[in-house]
Structures are given as structure tokens and as C-alpha cells.
């Protein structure tokens, strides 16, 4: 609930994750089909590098932007463990949403093309196969999602370290003091 209400931050990172999951999945798809191995490998590693950077940045930003809220929660009796669970939820939820968006988009893409081919057989003339319509198959998407979940574990570890450093006394500091 809280993560959804951080609309701007959530939307920006969710869309970036969606794009990165697609990019990485597409690179894996290219590697599998070996259309251009050098290009596919380069693209895959660039996407991974950006993915890990983005995950760590997101974890750092969440703690940084919410440090006063975290300090307040500590003041009112939340333990570090409680706050870690909350922030882990923030991070994982955003990644899951990115994953669901990309799966939805890919399904609709195939459905749309399938419908288009089926309703216009005379335009293309040749028979079509569903697996050839898919931009990215499900296997690369799931492999990418697993890789991104691993990145999120690193991000959660970073967030946990930063949460420990937030002192409850920050909550009592006056604005501008």
C-alpha cells in the first residue's frame, strides 16, 4: 500500500525495470537464436550492468528519501527487522510489477499479431506459427526475472545496512535545524 502511494518514484522505477527486463530477455532470446552473438552478448551484459546499478540505486534512494520516516518508525517502536521487511517489500513489489507488466505486454503482442494474421490470411498468404510471432518467449523472461530477483537480494542487503545506520534521533531534529 505504501509503495503504491509513492506514485512518482514507484512509477519511474517500475517502468525502468519493465524496460530492462524486456531488454535483457530480448538479448537472451537473441543469444538463443544466435542471430548476432556478439551483439546479443554485449546487449545482455549492458542490460545486466544497468539492472544491478538501478537496483542498488533504488534501494539507496528509498532509504535516503524516507530516512525521517524510518527514524520516526524507530521512535514509535518499530524494530530494524520490521523496517527491513517494509523496505524489502517496497523493492520486491516494484520488481514483480515490472515482471507482470512485461509478461502482459508480450502476451498481448502475440495475441494481437495472431488475431491480425488469422483475420487477414490473404494479405500475407503464408501460414504462421505462434512461436514465430512471439517477440520474446517465456523462458528468457523467466531467466531474466530470476537474475533480477538476485539483484534485488543485493539491493535489500544494501538497504538493510543503510537502515541500521538511521538513528531514531533524526526524527526529533527540527526542520531546518
Amino acid at each position: 500500500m505504501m509503495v503504491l502511494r509513492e506514485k512518482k518514484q514507484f512509477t519511474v522505477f517500475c517502468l525502468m525495470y519493465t524496460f530492462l527486463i524486456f531488454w535483457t530477455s530480448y538479448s537472451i532470446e537473441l543469444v538463443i537464436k544466435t542471430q548476432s552473438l556478439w551483439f546479443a552478448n554485449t546487449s545482455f551484459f549492458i542490460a545486466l550492468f544497468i539492472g544491478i546499478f538501478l537496483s542498488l540505486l533504488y534501494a539507496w534512494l528509498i532509504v535516503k528519501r524516507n530516512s525521517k520516516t524510518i527514524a520516526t518508525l524507530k521512535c514509535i517502536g518499530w524494530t530494524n527487522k520490521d523496517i527491513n521487511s517494509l523496505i524489502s517489500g517496497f523493492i520486491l513489489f516494484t520488481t514483480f510489477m515490472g515482471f507482470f507488466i512485461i509478461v502482459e505486454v508480450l502476451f498481448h503482442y502475440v495475441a494481437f499479431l495472431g488475431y491480425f494474421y488469422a483475420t487477414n490470411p490473404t494479405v500475407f498468404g503464408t501460414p504462421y506459427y505462434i512461436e514465430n510471432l512471439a517477440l520474446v518467449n517465456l523462458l528468457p523472461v523467466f531467466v531474466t526475472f530470476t537474475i533480477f530477483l538476485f539483484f534485488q537480494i543485493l539491493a535489500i542487503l544494501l538497504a538493510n545496512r543503510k537502515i541500521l545506520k538511521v538513528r531514531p534521533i533524526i526524527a526529533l531534529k527540527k526542520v531546518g535545524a
Partner: protein
Amino acid sequence: MPVDKDTMIEAIDVNKEYRRAGAIIRALADVNLTIKSGDFVLVQGPTGCGKSTLLNVLSGIDLPDSGKIIFDGENIARAQEARLSKLRRQKIGFVFQDFNLIPTLTAIENVAALLWPTVLRDKEIENRAIAALRDVNLLERKDHYPVQMSGGEKQRCGLARAIIHRPRVILADEPTGNLDPESEKQVMDLLKHINKDMETTIIVVTHRGSLASYANKIVKMEKGAIIKIQ
């Protein structure tokens, strides 16, 4: 050391120093203070006299360099963070000058947030939050976000959050510092009401002399030391 049954908090020879820009600032100097259960204590003094530091060490938010803080019979001066969190959740309510409400949560959610990590059921937490908001006359604003509330309403929401778990002690750091006189009276009347009806010990840090009439004990501080208790 035997502790008086009525003693809620006792500070014994408490010292606290800060290092700021290379200089050592003695925030608390051999502070000794006993607060009894049901007291309404006002801690007064000029800016930088150590009154907020005293509040912080009494609640376990900050640890003293030396001395003891006996809170409800337990020395918390050297307690672990997990123990202090549990103590704050069970026995202490906080009221902040800047309200410290979570901007993305409604009034009722802000109040209920204190109990979210507990084993209580959602319905029970909601009922308690509604009761707390009713106690501070803010029930009609329960679905409003902090940005939609006035300063006085935000502070009453903060007060509801401080009482939802029926704490033994409420600590308020300049609770009326950002309020107009009318809201200040409302908040202080509510604190007095909580003090009387719930027998909650109240400790208010303020530099405003006009609030003296609410307290039954006034602690005056200067340069980190208590100079007068009346």
C-alpha cells in the same frame, strides 16, 4: 538500588557530551531527576540547554555517556536497540514538534502504523485507531492525508498515534512549537486530559513559559544541568 513503586523514570548522575566542529559540548551534566507515575512534567530552558537531550536519553532514543536511566524499574542506559524498540512500543508515546506523520498515509493509517508490526488483527488495530482518533476529536478527519490537515489537526493526529497503545509515558518535544495559540490550547488540554483520565505520565519539553499551568512539576535547565525543580 530499590526503586520507589510510584517512580516511573529516574535519571541518576546522567552525563552526555557531543562533539561538534571539534568542540565538546556538555549537553547533560550530572543530571538527577525522578518522575513519578502520573506526573505532568514540563522541562523548560533556553535553546541549547539540553532539554531535548534529556528527553532523548529518558526515552532510550539516545544513550547517556554515564549514569543510569531507570525506566519503570529497568535500567535502559545500556540496553540493546531491540529491547529499546520493544520498550518504546509498549510503554512510550512520542509527540514531535514537526508532527512526523507519514505523508502517504491517511490519519487513521498514521495512527494504526504503530501497531502494524504487532500480532494484533487488522480489525482490532482499526478499532483502536478509531478510538484514539475519537479521543483527540479527529475522527471526522480519519481519511484525510496530512497535507489536507491543519497544523493543530496534524498534532492531534500525532497525539492519537502516541496513545493508541495506551503507553505509560508520553514524551513531547516542543509539541506546540509550530501551532497557533488556539491549537496550542487544544493540544495541551488534550495532554492534560490524557494525563488525568488515563493516568499517563507526561513529559513536555518546551521553551514557552505560558504552559506552566498545565504541569505539576516544572524542571528548569541551563547549560546541561537542572537548576530548579518546582
